[in-house]
């Protein structure tokens, strides 16, 4: 079976451990498609996490990142989990939340989206092709980023079945370019707050 790189459309090669790799883009995909435990316990964990002081501070900073870098009036939080991000929404912004496992609310289909956010959810999406179909003017995300010399299999963000994609910064930017988005800002505030190797990016439809 051939696996095609979503960025360069080339063939991806196996590097063992159920990982396939595109050397041109430095992109890994975990093909272990066992069902992740997206159950009530999983949701509860993130719900409680969002209520902690750290969780609230983190989501505040995320809102700050969105407001300071985009023109947002209508926002979709894709992979909203327990809605801890949208709970802190500031005045003046309409927020839709969607999660394929926990909140199948498709009301966003009727809206013209300014911004779609993927907070720790982009790497979970099995079919990345749906992202450009959302038609957002801006995409904001935080995502674990791999770096040179990293042993992915012992990385703390290596979670087969849950994290499908392992992007380098170059791969992420190239993928977005392919979909017509250019990078306008990036930030390491999540890393600074203690969330190792997680970076935030803001992309604009060009």
């Amino acid at each position, binding site marked *: 079976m051939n696996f095609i790189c979503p960025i360069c459309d080339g063939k991806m090669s196996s590097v063992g451990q159920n990982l396939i790799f595109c050397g041109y883009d430095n992109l890994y995909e975990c093909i272990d498609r066992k069902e992740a435990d997206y159950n009530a316990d999983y949701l509860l964990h993130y719900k409680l996490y969002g209520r902690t002081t750290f969780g609230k501070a983190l989501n505040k900073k995320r809102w*700050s990142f969105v*407001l*300071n*870098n985009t023109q947002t009036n209508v926002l979709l939080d894709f992979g909203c989990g327990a809605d801890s991000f949208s709970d802190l929404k500031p005045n*003046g912004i309409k927020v839709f939340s969607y999660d394929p496992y926990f909140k199948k609310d498709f009301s966003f*289909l*009727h809206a*013209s989206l300014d911004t779609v956010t993927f907070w720790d959810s982009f790497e979970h999406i099995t079919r990345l092709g749906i992202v450009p*179909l959302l*038609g957002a003017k801006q995409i904001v995300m935080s995502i674990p980023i791999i770096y040179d010399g990293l042993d992915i299999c012992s990385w703390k963000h290596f979670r087969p079945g849950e994290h499908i994609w392992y992007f380098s910064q170059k791969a992420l930017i190239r993928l977005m370019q392919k979909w017509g988005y250019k990078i306008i800002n990036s930030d390491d505030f999540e890393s600074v707050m203690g969330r190792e190797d997680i970076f935030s990016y803001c992309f604009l439809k060009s």
Partner: protein
Amino acid sequence: MRNDRLAFGFVNGLGNFIFLTAAVKVLRNWGYDDITLITDLNNPHNKRNYALLQEIYPYAFNRLETSFEEEKYDRLFICAWSRPSLAVPYMEKYNRKVPIVRWNIIGFHEVEMYLRMVGASWKEFDGYMFDVAEGPILQSDYPRIALAQCSGSGQSDKKAWPYFPELSSKLRKMGYSVVLVGYNDELSGCEYDEDFRNRTTISEAGKVLSQCDLLVAPSTGLTVVADAVKTPVLLLEGPMFTARAHPLQTDYRIVRSYISCAPCFQTPVWDSCREPLCMNRITVDQVIKGVLSFKTFKQKKIFKGSDFESVVVKKVNNKRVAYLFCCKDRYRLLDEMLTSFKKSNPYKGTMFILNDGSIDPRVEERILNFKMDGINVIYKKLEYQHMNVKGVRTAMLYNMLSDMVIDSGETFDYVTLIDSDLLFKPGWIQKIAGIYDELKVSKKIGLITGFSFRTKDDSTTYGCDNGKYRLNSHISGQWLMSYQFFMSEFGRFEDGAGSADISKCDDLHKRGFTQIKVSPSVIQHAGAYSSSLRIIPGALVEDFR
């Protein structure tokens, strides 16, 4: 009632002061009745603002003091977040520390910080304490747009936007009244209908803004005043943190120029910046698009609907028309439409075509091969076809078409939206435009719609009696409007279920317009032809093919 004596130490600008009143209001709600404002007269920032502070402190405080005497108060709050010179004498005198807030790090709204300072939370936020004067009363016509630069701020070299004169000129051409507010010679060179620069107190500026439909300004004190009087704001954002100071009570939109060094306030980049590209790169067209995105104009009702079907049509020549349409995969209907369009002897102008990700190569080929004297074609293809749920994304596509017209920089006499499955009779556009001109009400009459669409004034029905396409009375097609109406009033399509056309009509109705209903008998929907006939046998009285 609580008898504790509270005091706030504060030196800063107008906007910051109004933000602070949110916390004072919470304290008043809690029953604190003795609140003092302490400020530092020698502070260079305060010298400029002192007269202003004298005017506005009674909104929220019992008295104004100029020296720190901690013993006099039960609780003392110091808001010296960006002006540490106020805190220095206090720190020296009482050997205490006052932290300086780094807004780029904490990510809070400024109001939230003040609320936290007094021990309150967002839930207790109850607006600002701001008194609006009784005058002046504005005389200019609605819709009114207020323009403000930096309201005398010392940061004006970083956050001033240089293109206000050009914007004011364009807004006036589009039919808006322009009202200037602010200080000194800011906004010099702007065209205006009313000018209140240097002529109002803050309360009066609040009154002026409360009578406007929109304020266009960089993030400054007057945007906070607009927030206090609940006038929508279009924020021109550059170096300042939107998250710190966005409006809390009113609708707002942001225009920015996406540059990676912005926002830079309180960072080393701020001090080293010699040319604020983040502001200079915001274009006038971007701002106009932002203005058009507001739907809250306090538009007066200008026109009452009546029966115009007996209007005598005069043919008007030498008009320029923008023809807008989007297409998908219905090649046969598109082919028929373009053929009948060519034969119909339309006015000269430009055809704006948006291809919504067609997968049929013949569609693009047909469009690219379409050539006609006097008709320019501006074509754009989207890479992906949008989800084809009924009505979904239609609004977005129409908005893209509107943007294409604005981006083209051309001007027209009329703008019309047509479908890719229409059939035209010769002279159709002349006839509809003739009706439009014959009405001669004003440039603000709104749009002519081909739908049998009734507003809530006339009856309670939306849509038409026999479904969307009334073949028996020949009513079909889309709308036609004057270019001035398109630029000044049309705004954006509201998303929603069903047809975007209907929701647009609904939106205009809410703003006080009544639709004009005409039966031009010159356009027929080919796409709905067979489906309508299935519903209403014999409804078709004439086939345009």
